[in-house]
């Protein structure tokens, strides 16, 4: 007899919603808010605000400085948040660098790589130059595209990328030629912020390792929505943002394997990140401090720690299962409307809760305006993934992105919004 895996307790949406005061407000003349833009930024539960407030009201001070009691408490709270983040994604606290957001995390790696040109022998593996290649994908958010373009411009390296299939999957058919002995970095998204597509890191990590390239995972849309163990995925670096996972804005995370963070030269320099400073030169603190110059965001990191506690209490498997139901309902309901085309996979197989679509004859901006008038907040435009939209032959799209606090009946509002846009613009 095979053991049945324990089912995660299903998520109690009403109980979750009660923790998010913003979800009770109305918009546009009294319409209940239906918030389908968590892919851009998520809402925050009371518990996160309470944690930030408690810190500011009792222990606020500059971390890693001073010997007074407040400084001690602040440092403990900050480092405790780091521990929680690390545990949440299955890595060590020393491998977690707090950044402003995920974008800064990717830039940190890209600029550290340029800085490697003038750093010591230990930084050799981070050097890039003419003849080297950096590989990304056509479904990247601009945050995991522009920094690599710029690194190539600064160093003379060449940018290459995996294509996207018509059904919104990564086309890995040329993996062995794209990732080759010239490849220095393979940077890719775990889950597309537009298509919802979940990419399996395994084949990319395996191939990158074979040729000695570093892997950088954009986990912005995966870590908030499903159980993710970065160590098991085997990537070298990963980034995600606090504000997309119930936490505050102004805090993001860069994960780097310890030996890499130790060898990689710093990006921003100044206070906090040093070991010894003379007028002539400086030596640097061990990671993660080496990458955290200046007084860091503190209440934000503590808020992120509280957000992680919240997500753990609900259970990431339960969050993922709940979003799968929402996604399934949305894919089915939108699929039944004539003139609506879903961008990306049309089943929940290897797919997360971002559902983008176009409505024939109505520009996404206008669809969004009609929805907004009905209280439904969706994202319209190219969602910081312009090349992907170009690849799919559309200027823009409408995106509904779900989170643990959305209920299945809210999908009805999404459908009603699309139908109203069609009626208003006379395309049905």
């Amino acid at each position, binding site marked *: 007899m095979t053991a049945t895996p324990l089912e995660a307790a299903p998520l109690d949406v009403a109980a979750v919603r009660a923790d998010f005061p913003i979800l009770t407000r109305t918009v*546009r*003349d009294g319409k209940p808010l239906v918030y389908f833009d968590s892919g851009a930024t998520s809402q925050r539960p009371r518990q996160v605000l309470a944690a930030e407030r408690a810190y500011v009201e009792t222990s606020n001070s500059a971390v890693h400085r001073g010997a007074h009691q407040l400084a001690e408490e602040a440092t403990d709270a900050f480092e405790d948040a780091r521990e929680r983040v690390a545990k949440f994604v299955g890595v060590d606290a020393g491998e977690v660098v707090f950044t402003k957001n995920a974008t800064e995390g990717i830039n940190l790696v890209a600029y550290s790589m340029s800085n490697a040109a003038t750093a010591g022998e230990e930084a050799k593996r981070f050097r890039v130059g003419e003849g080297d290649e950096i590989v990304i994908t056509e479904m990247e958010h601009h945050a995991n595209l522009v920094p690599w373009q710029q690194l190539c411009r600064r160093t003379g390296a060449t940018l290459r990328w995996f294509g996207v299939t018509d059904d919104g999957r990564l086309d890995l058919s040329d993996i062995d030629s794209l990732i080759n002995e010239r490849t220095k970095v393979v940077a890719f998204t775990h889950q597309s912020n537009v298509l919802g597509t979940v990419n399996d890191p395994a084949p990319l990590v395996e191939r990158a390792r074979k040729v000695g390239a570093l892997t950088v995972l954009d986990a912005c849309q995966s870590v908030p929505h499903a159980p993710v163990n970065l160590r098991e995925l085997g990537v070298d670096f990963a980034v995600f943002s606090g504000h997309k996972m119930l936490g505050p804005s102004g805090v993001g995370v860069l994960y780097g394997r310890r030996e890499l963070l130790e060898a990689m030269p710093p990006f921003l320099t100044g206070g906090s990140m040093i070991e010894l400073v003379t007028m002539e030169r400086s030596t640097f603190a061990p990671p993660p401090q080496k990458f955290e110059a200046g007084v860091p965001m503190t209440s934000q990191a503590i808020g992120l720690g509280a957000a992680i506690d919240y997500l753990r209490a609900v259970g990431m498997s339960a969050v993922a299962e709940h979003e799968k139901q929402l996604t399934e309902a949305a894919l089915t309901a939108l699929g039944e409307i004539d003139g609506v085309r879903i961008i990306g996979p049309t089943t929940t197989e290897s797919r997360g809760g971002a559902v983008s679509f176009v409505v024939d004859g109505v*520009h*996404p*901006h*206008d669809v969004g*305006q*009609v929805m*907004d*008038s009905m209280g439904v907040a969706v994202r*319209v*435009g*190219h969602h910081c993934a*312009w090349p992907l*939209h170009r690849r799919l032959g559309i*200027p*823009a799209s409408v995106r509904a992105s779900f989170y643990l606090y959305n209920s299945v009946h809210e999908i009805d509002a999404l459908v009603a919004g699309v139908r109203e846009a069609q009626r*208003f*613009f006379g395309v049905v």
Partner: protein
Amino acid sequence: MDLEAMYQEIILDHYKNPHGRGLREPYDGESYQINPTCGDELQLRVKLDGDRIADVSHTGQGCSISQASVSVLTDLVVDRPVDDALAKLDAFVELMQGRGKVEPDEDVLEDGVAFAGVAKYPARVKCALLGWMAFKAALVQAGVEKAREGAEIS
């Protein structure tokens, strides 16, 4: 929110049957404008005849507001003295940047007054101004120095 207040019938009519659409030769100035937040694109050409706007032609892709706005622009400026066109441009920009508090002058803006409701939605103001931004830049390219002055469009 009243959708009809934003999407006036005039706007929808211009959107469905845009005036001046399609690029034409010859021309004296040309501009390509994009709205980086949504990816809308617009290419616009101006043909001058002395101090008169002889023709405005355009192509691109965008929402109803940006498409209707450039269509209205065509009606307002073609066959008018450059000075009149610039005055209309200033009036339209003032209307759009007025957060819904500017009372439009119908004698100057004609169909353009329909965009008064759009001015209340900051996210859509850029849509409405895309064509006007292109017109201004195309005039500058055509050598109309005074088009550099006046309302700042951003």
